[in-house]
């Protein structure tokens, strides 16, 4: 059941419904503009800028998380067909991670070169993005589910999700910064991993509750 929903989402994403290209373009543009505004390459600011770029680009795809299926009534129909909200939320989160987050992480090293970052710094940033990805996905899922019933949730989504993502952003950037010197076994990486666990543990039930509320139950 979860597999069917995931496959359907991936199929839709492959035909452009998830806006992966748009998010990637936004991320590239953001990094380029930062480079211009800050006057040339800024390797020291690199991890922070990439984290910011990845976070904002992920939020850009938020309104495609649950909204199309809410509008067509597909979410309610899936529930009627016996799919639990947990299965729906898990499948949607997996699909969001695969189509919205992972492409951004894969693009990060190339954008890092634009910022003049060196090898260890790039590795650190990518690893911290990977560790923080569950948190990005889980919080995006909550906000996406909460706003699925709203007509124009775009900016509201960013405002709602931003406070939740601040700790992730802080420790994500810090983890990337200290990676070159201390590797993976740092407090920053552990806290980032902890934040990801908390996000998933809170985000999934909150998404399930929001979806049930949208359904009218």
């Amino acid at each position, binding site marked *: 059941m979860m597999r069917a929903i995931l496959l359907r989402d991936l199929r839709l994403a492959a035909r452009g419904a998830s806006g992966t290209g748009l998010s990637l373009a936004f991320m590239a543009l953001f990094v380029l503009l930062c480079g211009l505004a800050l006057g040339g390459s800024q390797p020291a600011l690199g991890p922070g800028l990439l984290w910011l770029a990845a976070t904002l680009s992920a939020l850009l795809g938020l309104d495609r998380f649950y909204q199309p299926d809410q509008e067509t009534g597909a979410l309610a129909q*899936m529930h*009627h067909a016996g799919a639990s909200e947990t299965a729906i939320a898990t499948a949607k989160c997996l699909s969001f991670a695969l189509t919205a987050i992972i492409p951004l992480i894969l693009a990060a090293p190339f954008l890092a070169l634009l910022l003049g970052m060196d090898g260890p710094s790039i590795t650190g940033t990518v690893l911290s993005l990977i560790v923080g990805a569950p948190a990005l996905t889980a919080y995006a899922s909550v906000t996406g589910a909460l706003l699925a019933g709203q007509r124009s949730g775009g900016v509201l989504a960013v405002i709602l999700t931003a406070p939740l993502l601040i700790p992730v952003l802080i420790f994500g950037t810090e983890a990337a910064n200290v990676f070159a010197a201390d590797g993976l076994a740092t407090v920053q990486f552990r806290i980032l991993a902890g934040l990801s666990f908390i996000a998933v543990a809170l985000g999934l039930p909150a998404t399930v509750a929001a979806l049930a509320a949208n359904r009218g139950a």
Partner: protein
Amino acid sequence: MPDRFDTLARPISLSVDSLHLSRGDRRLIEGLSLELGPGDALWLTGPNGIGKTTLLLALAGLLRPDAGSVDWMIADHRVRPENAVAYAAHQGPERNGLKLGEELAFWQTLYRDRKVLQARLESVGLSGRADTPVAGLSAGQRRRLSLARLMASNRGAWLMDEPLAGLDTEGRARVTHVLSDHLSNGGLAVIASHQPVPIDGVTAHKLVLEPGS
């Protein structure tokens, strides 16, 4: 017929008791009570905006009543609406990015339908259309898809919102045929429609929703 819900052995019934419904701040249904059993069809009609869809949503468990109750029973056991009902909304859940076959196969998987996709497509007159993108379907073809989804649901009760909208003569005949088949197998149907939906062998109960009634 093993691929069918076993409604004869597990009869389905609906009981609605003094139901009050509203949409936003508008009171639409006040104090509605009705009982339906296996093989019964209820035809809901009335002017636009009177609350036909609202009533269907409440029966499907997708709208919380202000007061009163909706109870679905299978073999004298109270069940949740989602276990008794398949709801064909006025506009389907289909996504434009998918092909017709993919869309229907997805719902077949969720409903654990045992019939093959081709048989389902054929029974609503869409055979050979599996590769047509959903975005390119006409209104009538979308109604046929919706009918196929109902058949695939294997649920005892069908809630249909304007099942004849956009359908040609042949399509309407198919709705009649499929619906009659469903009812004669002990199914139950609630149909919101402006025009009567002909059914073989059964006379649908008619419920006219009127302002102030």
